[in-house]
């Protein structure tokens, strides 16, 4: 490709196809045009909507402060492209360079970007999942339907799973004055992402806001009435919760089924790609023309020993997409690696939670600023004597400092004093993450070992 003009030709008259028309797909398309790609650009999305933003779906939309159909992503520039919305891609022929669509159409490509993201894990018992009043929350339509139901003033809402999304839903319901029960298999909310010490704060927040929080229990069955409406849930401790709305918030499944048999290195853990976003095939050999970005991708991260990391983070999707797009139309020497430090935010029960790095890799946590009891603090996570992550509860302005500690693999525990050091911060505590072999509800970061080939994947646990 070097110097033979083929790159110039690609930029002038090549065909680029993007599958998945959400955050990552849109930002990639914008970048391609901004960087001078003049060929044909096709975006394929199975949802009928123009790209929209998901974070408000569990926040403002459920509060009735924003309508679900008013969440379109802001356009950073205009994009000249063919939009194939409402049609899923159903297959990939790598040899021929074609994407197959559900309407039997085929779209040829010179470069392909896969940004199909994840979907909500459904309630595993199908008949129960179909009861009226049982919801998941991933899409605009999910959110609109749920918001409508909340508007009707249900007597009680049950949220299954207290990860970030489940907790945000519970928070919105309480703000609307609805009675809420949260059932979480782990010892506390957010325990998979932030550990037990910080999870205990999340639990306190929920209870102070009147959530009926039940941890260490599983929902074993949902029960409907004669008209097919959900009326109760049965819990593993033998109790029953009468409820008319159930929100299943059990984490996500990567949208890779459509790639089965294609020869691409795609599976339940996502699509393995290199730091330049090029996808691997199932032999572990990197492809030249297929790229992946966003929630569906997993890529080696230099800060974490080059283990494959998959992130369900907004900021990651946006920046990885830009890099993938840039690299698709660049000489190999001009490509850039995707190695941003992960960052995530959530707002619930009036508290702004923000994290950098990968707290869930930590074994210890030091409350370096503020106090747990005030729900206003910074927790720094340590792994093998270095700082690997940090979380801020209403203290986000300090995070750039902790990000720098992560980037420079600074020693843990940090040996220096800081402003606002309280008694909580005298020594590190056991971060108290659950046993990684017991899945919690929807960790938003997963570390996937060193092998790009999913079937030989060895999970390297956080402990």
């Amino acid at each position: 490709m070097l110097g033979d003009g083929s790159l110039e030709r690609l930029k002038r008259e090549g065909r680029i196809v993007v599958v998945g028309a959400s955050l990552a797909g849109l930002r990639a398309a914008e970048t391609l045009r901004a960087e001078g790609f003049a060929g044909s650009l096709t975006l394929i999305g199975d949802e009928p909507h123009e790209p929209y933003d998901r974070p408000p779906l569990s926040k403002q939309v459920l509060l009735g402060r924003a309508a679900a159909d008013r969440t379109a992503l802001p356009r950073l520039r205009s994009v000249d492209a063919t939009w194939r919305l409402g049609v899923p891609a159903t297959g990939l022929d790598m040899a021929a360079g074609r994407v197959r669509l559900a309407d039997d159409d085929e779209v040829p490509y010179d470069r392909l970007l896969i940004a199909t993201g994840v979907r909500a894990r459904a309630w595993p018992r199908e008949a129960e999942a179909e009861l009226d009043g049982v919801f998941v929350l991933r899409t605009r339509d999910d959110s609109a339907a749920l918001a409508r139901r909340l508007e009707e003033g249900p007597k009680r809402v049950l949220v299954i799973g207290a990860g970030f999304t489940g907790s945000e839903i519970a928070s919105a319901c309480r703000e609307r004055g609805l009675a809420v029960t949260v059932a979480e298999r782990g010892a506390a909310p957010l325990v998979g992402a932030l550990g037990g010490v910080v999870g205990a704060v999340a639990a306190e927040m929920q209870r102070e806001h009147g959530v009926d929080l039940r941890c260490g229990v599983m929902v074993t069955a949902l029960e409907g009435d004669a008209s097919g409406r959900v009326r109760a849930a049965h819990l593993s401790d033998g109790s029953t919760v009468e409820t008319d709305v159930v929100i299943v918030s059990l984490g996500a499944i990567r949208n890779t089924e459509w790639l089965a048999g294609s020869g691409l290195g795609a599976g339940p853990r996502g699509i393995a790609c290199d730091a330049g976003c090029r996808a691997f095939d199932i032999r572990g050999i990197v492809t030249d023309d297929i790229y992946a970005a966003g929630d569906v991708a997993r890529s080696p991260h230099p800060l974490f020993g080059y283990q494959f990391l998959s992130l369900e983070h907004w900021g990651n999707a946006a920046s990885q997409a830009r890099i993938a797009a840039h690299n698709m139309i660049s000489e190999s020497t001009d490509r850039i690696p995707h190695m941003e430090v992960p960052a995530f935010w959530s707002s619930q029960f009036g508290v702004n939670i923000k994290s950098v790095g990968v707290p869930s890799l930590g074994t210890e946590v030091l409350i370096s600023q503020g106090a747990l009891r005030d729900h206003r603090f910074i927790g720094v996570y340590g792994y093998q004597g270095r700082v690997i992550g940090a979380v801020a509860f209403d203290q986000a302005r300090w995070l750039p400092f902790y990000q720098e500690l992560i980037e420079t693999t600074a020693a843990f525990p940090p040996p220096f004093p800081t402003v606002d050091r309280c008694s909580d911060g005298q020594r590190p505590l056991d971060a108290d993450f659950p046993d990684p072999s017991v899945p919690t509800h929807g960790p938003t970061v997963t570390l996937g070992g060193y092998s790009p080939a999913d079937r030989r994947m060895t999970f390297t646990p956080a402990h």
Partner: protein
Amino acid sequence: MTQSLLHQILDYANRANPYPIYEQLRKTPVHHDDGGPYVISTYYEIRSLLHDPRISSDARNLASTAGDPLAEPAQEEESALPPGFLRLDPPEHDRLRRMTNRPFGPPHSPHRVDGMRGELHDIVSGLVDGIGDPGRIDLVEQFSYPFPVTVICRLLGVPREDESRFHTWADTIAASLDPDPDADPTERGKGANDARMQLGMYLAGLIEERRKNPGDDMLSQLATAKGEDGSMTTMELLSTAALLLIAGHETTVNLITNGMLTLLRHPDVLQRLREDPRLAVPVVEELLRFEPPVQLVPQRTTLADIEVRGVTIPKGASLWLVLASGNRDPQRFEDPDRFDPDRPDNQHLGLGSGIHSCFGAPLARLEAQFALAELARRLENPRLLEDPPPYRQNAVLRGPRHLHISCDGIRP
């Protein structure tokens, strides 16, 4: 013998254009002359120190103030107010700032600043209406100076009939922050203390009155607040009100004056602004980068030995963060000495960063946008009568003492 860079910064001869000194300074991002403060001048280093929890804004953590020419003498009089939250660390800083923010900004008061638009417009047009002889205007005296004090009065809820007294105190206090080398320092200090005292007593009276008859002004709400953080003591209230007045006065004056000066030096931009008042938004951002009213932040100290760019700064040292130099750092801003309102990604340091970043920022921005757009629209063919204009002494809150301009007339 060449003068140390530190003294060159303070030297009045360099006031009109300190930027070449900053350029020198950036060659040693952590500059330290024996016994003096550690002077930080590059963008990324300043930014990270502003987010560094090992850095304190509380002067009680300083090992010594000897050698720092900008250190303030410890206040000894009994009447002295406790420091406002600008000079405090968390958790006290956070608590006071949160309580002050409750009646000022989102989430509790998202409309306070926006709701002042009409008032800002009226104040600005009133000042321009009153300019008089277009042949010789001192923009500082006639416009920039009175504007922010009026705004703070309205924000706090100072009754109109008391505003002129407020202006007199504010002027005296501001003058004490700008030492005139020819004036008698003890006299000046006494004048300022008297003014502080009278202002304090006036505010204390107003607070009493507002506790009894609260309105929807900020002082009433601060005085009667009972939020999750409890309520402020009268002393806390007084120092907060004084902080708002002082932090929002000279700074805004200088932003507007620097703004007009810069626009008159860049007539093409002035013309664009005249045609499209919406340009005021990026113009003000670029001004905060290009001619920041707060040139450096002197009140910071280290809680531990810290290393910056290979230099160990010892615990208790005093730091100067030269925001105006960081704003001209070519590592961060392309062609930094060019005034360019179309600059993308203009994340300047003009309003600070981190937990002490300017509390009044939304108001300050709006004030400057209104002021500059209105001046651009109404002054016909404005010209500088003197370039550079005479500056105030103050190297930290840097700006012209007078800005003499003339124009052909004033549009209605």
